[in-house]
């Protein structure tokens, strides 16, 4: 169901793959409250005290864990894009960080924005004119078409099979409660609390499995944007070629040969890496090479995984240290190359910045297994079951989490001694949330099941 401006919505507003920062936009009555729950300003003031058009610097937290540093921009209704209270959190770019921040914002009470919803709200609040509205309509219908495609592929896929399975068990329980409640004069057996709780617990476990597979699943199915970085001639291209198993980049001994980012998709362990070999990170006056370097810096901030390559045969220099500083919070593996030569690099310094560190000789084809193990560990895919169904996006994840918390309420309603009617309310919320993935209606589905399963008369 579409929610009309009653809820506070959030989404990543910067397109993925463009821009060095990621902006998470929160809009709605409670935008400031939600933002205050995740953003702690260094000046100690809460955003609710800010005037419109002001900015604050601070950190983003998910519960107690610090995720990133960020700038919060506060807009007060009606002087904002949507015409509502808006907070824009500008954090580091990159899929991983922005999604972490978005998830924290959802936990703090925002709901995922529907396709085109910011624009829609802007229009409804009179922030866009009529000609622009025409364009919005097109955007929305375009998005609904792709949403329909997405729903279709989701319907055929393992996820809907799995959620259908969980859902149909819940519907059976709900139908049983309904039959028992709506037909008291029939001998419909009462559901034992113990059985209910065990049913709910198994639904909960199944939902949990889906959720924990989500991050790992993305690494496995969609791949992770991975950058191979390092100063010129540390062996990035050799490593890349080793990884992809073919001569993909031009390899020479002259520093600065690789000028462009080269895309390659490789499997390492059970993870797909969407690899980019980059121009060496080096201050240069060569204009062609300069373009490549800047692009690299940008990409560093928004990628999902960094493979930072160092020359083990040389001491760390200023450029190496700059690189280490640049890695920041992005997940990274440090590859200390040229282990076949005498080792002069200070490995412990690297390890301070990048705990996951391996020493290899790319030229001799050594150390690949070690790299695979480290990548799997970082992506948390070691125990990943490849045939397990997967949540495709943050929106689905949100629905599944909503279902899980409704199930938690079912369990606590029973444990606290509430009647089955309270349980049924929470249960139907869980079913609704799961059915939303496939677009059916809970009440009708439950009632159909009552009549299919139970012999009830008036």
């Amino acid at each position, binding site marked *: *169901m*579409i*929610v*009309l*401006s*009653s*809820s506070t919505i959030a989404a990543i507003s910067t397109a993925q793959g463009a821009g060095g920062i990621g902006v998470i936009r929160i809009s709605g009555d409670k935008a400031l409250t939600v933002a205050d729950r995740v953003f702690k300003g260094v000046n100690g003031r809460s955003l609710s005290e800010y005037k419109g058009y002001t900015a604050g610097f601070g950190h983003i937290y998910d519960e107690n864990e610090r995720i990133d540093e960020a700038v919060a921009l506060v807009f007060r209704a009606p002087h904002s894009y949507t015409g509502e209270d808006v907070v824009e959190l500008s954090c580091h770019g990159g899929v991983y960080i922005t999604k972490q921040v978005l998830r924290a914002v959802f936990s703090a009470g925002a709901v995922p924005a*529907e*396709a*085109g919803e910011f624009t*829609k709200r802007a*229009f*409804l609040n009179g922030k866009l004119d*009529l000609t622009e*509205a025409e364009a*919005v*309509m097109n955007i*929305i*219908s375009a*998005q*609904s078409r792709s*949403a*329909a495609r997405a729903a279709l592929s989701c319907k055929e896929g393992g996820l809907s099979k799995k959620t259908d399975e969980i859902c149909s068990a819940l519907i059976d329980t*709900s139908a049983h409660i*309904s039959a*028992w*409640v*709506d*037909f*008291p*004069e*029939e*001998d419909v057996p009462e559901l034992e609390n113990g059985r209910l709780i065990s049913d709910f617990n198994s639904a909960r476990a199944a939902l949990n499995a889906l959720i924990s597979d989500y991050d790992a699943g993305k690494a496995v199915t969609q791949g992770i944007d991975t950058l191979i970085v390092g100063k010129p001639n540390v062996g990035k291209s050799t490593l890349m070629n080793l990884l992809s198993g073919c001569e993909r980049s031009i390899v020479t001994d002259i520093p600065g040969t690789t000028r462009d980012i080269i895309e390659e998709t490789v499997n390492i362990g059970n993870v797909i890496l969407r690899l980019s070999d980059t121009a060496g990170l080096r201050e240069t006056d060569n204009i062609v090479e300069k373009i490549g370097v800047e692009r690299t810096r940008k990409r560093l901030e928004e990628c999902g995984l960094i493979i930072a390559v160092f020359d083990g045969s040389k001491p760390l220099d200023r450029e190496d240290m700059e690189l280490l500083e640049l890695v920041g919070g992005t997940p990274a593996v440090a590859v200390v190359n040229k282990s076949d030569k005498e080792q002069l690099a200070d490995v412990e310094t690297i390890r301070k910045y990048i705990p996951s560190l391996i020493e290899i000789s790319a030229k001799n084809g050594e150390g690949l297994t070690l790299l695979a193990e480290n990548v799997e560990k970082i992506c948390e895919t070691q125990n990943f079951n490849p045939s397990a169904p997967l949540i495709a996006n943050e929106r689905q994840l949100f629905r599944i989490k909503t279902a899980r918390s409704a199930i938690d309420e079912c369990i606590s*309603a029973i444990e*606290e*001694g*509430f*009647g*089955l*009617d*309270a349980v*049924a*309310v*929470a249960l*139907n919320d869980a079913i609704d949330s799961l059915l939303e993935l496939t*677009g059916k*209606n*809970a*009440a*009708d589905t*439950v*009632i159909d099941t*009552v*009549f299919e399963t139970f*012999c*009830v*008369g*008036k």
Partner: protein
Amino acid sequence: MGYEAGKYDVAVIGAGHAGIEAGLAAARLGCRTAVFTINMDAVGNCPCNPSIGGTAKGHLVREIDALGGEMGKTADECFLQMRMLNRGKGPAVHSLRAQIDRRKYSTVMKHKLELQKNLDLRQAEIVSIEKSGDKWLLETRMNAVFECAAVIVATGTFLGGKIYVGDVSFESGPDGIFPASYLGESIRRLGIETRRFKTGTPARVLKSSIDFSQLEVQRGDKPPVPFSYDTDSLGENKVVCHISYTNERTKDIILKNIHRSPLYGGKIEGVGPRYCPSIEDKIVRFADKPRHQLFIEPCGLDTEEMYIQGMSSSLPEDVQLDFYHTIKGLENALIMRSAYAIEYDCIDPLQLDLTLEFAEFSGLYGAGQFNGSSGYEEAAAQGLIAGINAALKIQGREPFILDRASSYIGTLIDDLVTKGVSDPYRMMTSRSEYRLILRQDNADTRLTPLGRELGLISDERWRKFNEKQELKRNEYKRLRQTVVPPSEELNDILVSRETSTVSTGIRLIELIKRPQLGYEALKAIDKDRPEIDSNIFEQVEIEVKYEGYIKRQEAQIEQMRRLEGRSLPKGIDYGEISGLRLEAQEKLNKIKPQNLGQASRISGVSPADISVLVIWLSQRKKD
């Protein structure tokens, strides 16, 4: 054409449960009203079970009463036994059910119609309905022609009624009263599509031929609780019911003769209600079940007819005799009336809007089984809403629409006109998404102010209502303000109820909130409790205990109402809104939802389609 017989503001065709509430409401709102019945002795007839209420249906009766309708009051006057069903299953699903004296019910209702100011009760079969300018002309079988501003069709199972008992079938209304054989054709001539539904009823058996000695007794509540907020007390229950079961032999006989069933033999085309299967249906569909429960219910105080609930059938009479006799207690039963199935004409309710008026026919309304529902209570609820809206329209007032969050009545009507039906529709608590709020105990709080605004609630009733609300508020305040000191007496109670003890003072409201406790448990330590209606305690306790769940549903309701508050103007051609998908265009054009919320519940209309409508609406507003 016949002779001019008179003019009415509102004419109601049929004087069953829908027709009665429709006629009374219209007349009470000041419209000159006629109620036509095909047989003066069939007003308010209960041709199936001699009972009013039941799960969700009891909620409907309370809501009808809260709005100033008549069903609850009459059920109280004619009650034989009262039971609050689902006690112990949670307050949302408590439902009142009354065994009633069916003949008395009919007599009392008829008398109320006769006494009602502005209302003429007339025996006549309406054979045609025609539009004449902005009026409707109704013609009777005797050629009388009435001119009416609004017509409410509440024909029940009479319209094209046909009874089936095995190979035997004949045109008939319920209880052998003649059917309305001509009106259906006239309605179809208007361009309204009709369909066939069927329902059924079990046999009536002579009381003295039943051996009750081996049967389980089912008694009423002590003390019995009334339906109506106007009824002060009911007195004692007057009858008991009995329970028996089918067995293997019953099953054998039915299965051996199943080919003689008109339904299984394919003679009946009508769709029966899923919730009210015949005994042969139950046995075929649930073949594993060794036995089915049945209830033996008295039909009244001055009759020996007993109703065999749960055993409706359309098998031939000789088979009926055989299988009824297999049942414990009924071995020698004398069947006074046989079980039968009845098939009738009804409409696809998607043709109606939320006032129950036909979208295409101004001033024409439908109510009850004619709209595809089933059950006395569902019919009465629709009758009330159709009657109110017919009157309001004539008087140029705003339509009266109850949304899903306000009531079961609103849910029922929204389901009918928005989702449509594939079999006779029965109300169930599981049909409401807001059932912790739509309880039978608070129907007055929810609806009486609306009834008052309409003009259906008397001054006296309004005074009593406000008094009760005041007492409720005070009681809340008392619970919040009263601090109970820790004491051995209190802790003894807490221990005995298996909840944690207290060592400091605790507010009464915190104690009531605990699921293990309640007014009953805390009697001894709650010394200053006022002497007020126990219904107030009940409401306060539920609202305190379920506060979290209620708040959650209130939040959902608020969201729902935002969409509900955005009305869609009449006469939109959705085909011209290019952003909508084809399926959505077709469904929207067919159902003509009155607001965005209703549109969002139509199957085939996606959230994206709703977004398009939102933008289209806003754009239109600016133009």
